[in-house]
């Protein structure tokens, strides 16, 4: 097993160390810029040497991300970033591997790989930039586009139901699931930092605007003047209280959430204290499914539990075999089985 990262101390790095020499070519005003900037800002704090970071992507606007990071990077093919990342992690588990994907790349063409990467708990961090549109191919409906959405490929409205990325990730039992907003830079930085520290499959959905093909897609909940009443910021161990004046609360009533004034009578419902470490993901799932206009939408960490990772288990079986049988002898292996000698 490669031990490079174990022997190389992380030197003190700055944001500058993570900026590559490539000119960034996203459209002016694209939400991707903010994610790139926050990523370059938090990586020096993670305590990993720069040479041990690998950014992997598929195809789409977001997938240009690795070119702009001065780390190891692999811009693969459409939807397959998670599969490539899985192989990287199997070959060298010491690397900090990040997958940058979008709603089309990660949940349409790459949906199968996303599911299996998460359920295997491969130690990779997946950032899904959700702008609810195909941008690079110039404006078709994506798997997260709303029902009825008018796009180039759905001129009279989409007849499909959208997938909810957080709900998908929780159903796949990803061990870390979060949501943030590209324009909420501080919140995004803290979520990215948490993902970086997580061991196991980390999934982060980032609400992000495409000002060319889907301008204002999350405005209903993220606009400056409405967000405090429409975004609930999840914090571990704290009740789900939100609103301009912290006067609104999310309550659980049977299997549904109810939203109302903090001081409303309980009426059979009860105030929820957020527990991101709950082993049962049911509540996280319900929170992830809250959608405007029926509900405010939650951002923050839905789930953060520690389970053995795929790469730990894979290498663990190898260590176990080697301690039980010794590092294999090729001579013995070739000469095993029923052999005979011709004089």
């Amino acid at each position, binding site marked *: 097993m490669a031990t490079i990262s174990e022997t190389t101390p992380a030197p003190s790095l700055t944001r500058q160390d993570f900026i590559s020499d490539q000119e960034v070519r996203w459209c002016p005003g694209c939400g991707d810029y903010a994610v790139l900037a926050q990523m370059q800002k938090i990586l020096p704090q993670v305590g990993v040497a720069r040479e041990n970071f690998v950014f992997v992507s598929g195809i789409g606007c977001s997938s240009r991300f690795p070119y702009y990071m*001065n780390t190891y990077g692999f811009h693969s093919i459409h939807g397959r970033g998670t599969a490539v990342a899985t*192989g990287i992690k199997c070959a060298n588990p010491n690397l900090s591997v990040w997958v940058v994907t979008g709603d089309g790349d990660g949940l349409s063409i790459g949906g*199968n790989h996303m599911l299996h990467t998460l359920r295997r708990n491969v130690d990779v961090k997946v950032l899904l930039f959700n702008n609810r549109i195909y941008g690079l191919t110039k404006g078709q409906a994506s798997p997260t586009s709303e029902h009825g959405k008018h796009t180039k490929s759905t001129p009279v409205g989409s007849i499909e139901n959208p997938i909810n990325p957080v709900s998908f990730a929780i159903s796949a039992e990803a061990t870390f699931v979060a949501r943030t907003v590209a324009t909420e830079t501080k919140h995004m930085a803290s979520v990215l930092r948490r993902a970086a520290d997580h061991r196991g499959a980390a999934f982060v959905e980032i609400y992000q605007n495409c000002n060319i093909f889907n301008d204002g897609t999350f405005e209903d909940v993220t606009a400056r003047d409405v967000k405090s009443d429409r975004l609930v910021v999840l914090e571990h161990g704290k009740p789900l209280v939100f609103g301009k004046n912290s006067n609104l609360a999310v309550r659980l009533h049977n299997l549904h959430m109810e939203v109302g004034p903090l001081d409303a009578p309980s009426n059979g419902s009860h105030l929820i204290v957020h527990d991101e470490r709950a082993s049962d993901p049911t509540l996280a799932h319900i929170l992830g499914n809250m959608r405007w206009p029926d509900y405010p939408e939650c951002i923050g960490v839905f789930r953060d539990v520690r389970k053995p990772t795929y790469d730990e288990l894979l290498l663990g079986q190898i260590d176990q075999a080697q301690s039980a049988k010794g590092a294999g002898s090729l001579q013995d292996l070739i000469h095993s089985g*029923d052999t005979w*000698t*011709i004089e």
Partner: protein
Amino acid sequence: MADTKEVTTPIKEVDRVTIRFAGDSGDGIQLSGSQFTLATARLGNDLSTLPDFPAEIRAPAGTLPGVSSFQISFSENPIFTPGDQPDVLVVMNPAALKVNLKDLTDGGIIVANANTFVPANFKKAGYDSNPLEDGSLKAYRVIPLPITELNARALADAPLTKKEIDRSKNFFALGVVYWLFDRPVESTVEWVQDKFKRRPEIAKANVTSLKTGYNYALTTEVFTSHYRVRKADMEPGEYRNITGTEATALGLVAAARLADKPLFYGSYPITPASDILHELAKFKQFDVRTFQAEDEIAAVCATIGASYAGAVAITGTSGPGLALKAEAIGLAVMTELPIVIINVQRAGPSTGMPTKTEQGDLAMAFNGRHGESPVAILAASSPSDCFTMAMEAVRIAVQHMTPLILLTDGYLVNGAEPWRLPDVEELSRIRITQDADPETFQPYGRDPETLARPWVTPGHPGLEHRIGGLEKAEGSGVVSHDPLNHERMVGLRAEKIARIAHDIPELEVEGERSGDILVLGWGSTYGAIISACRQMRTEGVRVSNAQLRYLNPFPRNLGNILSRFKLVLVPELNLGQLRDILAARYPGNRYMGLNKVQGQPFKIGEIRAKLEEILETGVMV
């Protein structure tokens, strides 16, 4: 043997025998076959084996789809195929007779378990009457033996259930066949005692069945003669019998060890390639990291990722899976990463005949990707050659930084033959140059000789760089849409593959180095071709043969060899895929195809018949 009674039945010397054991999957057919193989190998015969499994996992007992078989051919001379036609058919029920009779040689011997030839089984097998008695088998020598009954009588005192007793009847049958071909029973006795050491009563019963069968044949004179095949003149050394699957897996493990890297094997279950995954999953102590992917695409993509991160990275599949991997192989071409894609070919297109063999994917290996995307292509020629070619595949991929397709097929991976074991000390190390100086490092800089780019893996400080599927600028590897750069890079990638020709052996011709007819095959047709050509040469026919194992690039002397023959006969288990490539690449020669797409390998006789036809019709004039 316990019994030392004088043998009165005459013994006949024969130079080659082919036996097929057939019965229900519950009849222990594969076990009988492998035990007979071991006993035969220890006697020093050369041999070749081929099992045939039903496509259905558990077809109903006694029915035609439930028949499983195992064929072994053994000889005092070198042999290369499991035999065209069995001389002896051992059938445990009517269905097994029905399925296999068409292959039996005229005058061949049928040993049948007569106890199973009852009306209920005739119906399942589609017989109206008892074939052992109705005269329909006149052309053969039929030996009906009440095997179930005799076996039960021999074990009457054994502390076993009736079911357990019946289960050992295959050992009775095996004992009969051991006597018929003058094989010692000791290797099987040892095997049984080891296998059932925790169930000594079962071990004892099986040994009793085996010896009773042997003695029954010896004493009852149901056979008018029995047979002896003398020792073959084989190269001294230690041997084991090996299947193509086992040899492939061992070759990969050996190659990773010789390259001093972990072995990654990413694969999605598919017949008949899955067995490679099963085999490799046993070798964890060799740092073999197997990954059962969610689909074929994930398997190859994870393999590309593993290669990028520094493992010897392999993915294995069969035809339909190769089709699914095409886009990702293009990514490996563009990123110039070493991966090996093993394609265990099966009869296609689509689901086709999954358990049956074919060579239908050569054209796909050459051309099955978009854009100009050449890859190296190898093909193994025999079960044990899978070891050599798996190692060659890894060596070429990592030293030339390219994806490589290794073609095997269903016939090769299930077939087995004696393998003279190599001395590990004598295997060459696989040298990998990974050195890069941060000051001068160019991700797409090239070795002046091979044109390979450096294999720099994540974790090396100062060498951080980005690769991907977009076209790369020569040297720096940054994204480039420059028209002339693209043309140069397409040329460089093609030239890199072409230069592998300097790093592979020349093609060897067996027989005269020039003349009338060259029989040129590729991959698994080797056994049938070499057997037919050797036979015909001993009969004075001027025919030479050669077998391609390196297909892209071709051996550097191929063009020259082709030009020295008046006619090149190209036998293939497809409609002429190699022939078309040769005709395009080396025009001016006269090519003729011999093509078969029946899901079955060539028989020696089929190659001979074609050659005889060519000679008789005077095509050569």
